[in-house]
């Protein structure tokens, strides 16, 4: 029983975002980018980051690739927040 418990804990720990490898981060960034683009809240800076991450990975710079991909993920998440905020509060800017 203990062995099973430790096995689950171990797999959860190493599958957490902290240990996601560069390839996984790039894939996640691409998925998010597709979603945020559908919402029409894509930042123009995100796709170039993913391209740079891919190039870094191809050049063997995994750490740099992962950092770039994570930055791209963060940007897509800001895009989601913007879309959500705009859908509820866009009237804020209207002349009163």
């Amino acid at each position, binding site marked *: 029983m203990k062995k099973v418990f430790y096995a689950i804990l171990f797999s959860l720990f190493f599958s957490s975002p902290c240990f996601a490898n560069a390839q996984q981060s790039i894939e996640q960034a691409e998925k998010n980018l597709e979603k945020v683009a559908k919402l*029409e*809240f*894509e930042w*123009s800076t995100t*796709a170039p980051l993913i391209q740079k991450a891919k190039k870094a990975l191809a050049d063997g710079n995994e750490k740099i690739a992962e950092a770039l991909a994570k930055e791209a993920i963060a940007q897509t998440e800001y895009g989601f927040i913007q879309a959500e905020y705009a859908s509820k509060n*866009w009237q*804020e*800017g209207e002349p009163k």
Partner: protein
Amino acid sequence: MKTKITWCLAIISIMILSACSDSETLKGDTEVQPAVQASTVNYQQKVNQDVKRFREFFASKFPNIELEEFVNGAYAIDAATREQWLEIEEFPPYEIPVEEGQEFFEAPFANGKTYADCFENGGIGIRQNFPYFDEKTNQVITLELAINQCREANGEQPLDYGQGELASISAYMANESRDNVFDIKVNSEAAYKAYMAGKQFFYSKRGQLNFACADCHLKISGSLLRADILSPAIGHPTGMPVYRSNWGELGTIGHRYRECNKNVRAEPLDYQSESYRNLEFYQTVMSNGLVVNGPSSRK
């Protein structure tokens, strides 16, 4: 005793249930009313209230500027740049594209027909009617979209949106409509939805810089952004297409939308995307009552 209690409970339950079903019917009745009201909503009136507030905002922000002056963008509000612009307008840089546009407009398609066959009044003096909401196809039709629809209906390939031949044709058509007054109608629920979608786009912040169209062209319009004066949003579509010095050529309003989005580091949408067409629809409605003065020149 127990049987009596059970019977009592059963009767009370039946009474409660019937009361509930009555109230359901009542609820249903009351819900019908707004639906009937919705069909009689005066959308144009709602829109006119928006136009009024929009105008009042700019009238209070720029109290010395007459409404009709806003068709001149930043040159309406800044005397120094206005002088330079007036000098440029003596030999307007859009003159050659307009002449080319006329040639393209009059050149027959392979089937012998021309653009004139696609538009009312032979395409002359009609710029002020665009964009409009087409109830049949349930979408906003811009002049540029109509030009390409005309081509496709006559077996021709659509032109690239943004710049080039299409912008020149649009410029010629605008030039032939100068001083005609915009009066874009929002007469149906579907048209109002498109209008509201355009309005939401206008006020929604996007891009890495977190700016909405309204931030630059309403809230802080008239301010300097580096060396450029931010033009007021009222009158934006009247001068389209526009010859911008930094482009070095003529471009459509869609081209300008894409540029604005890029400036705030938002990924621009496709030319003639539904959102951009709705935005143009909203912006043009906000400019109702102003005249066509396109094509125009800007810095």
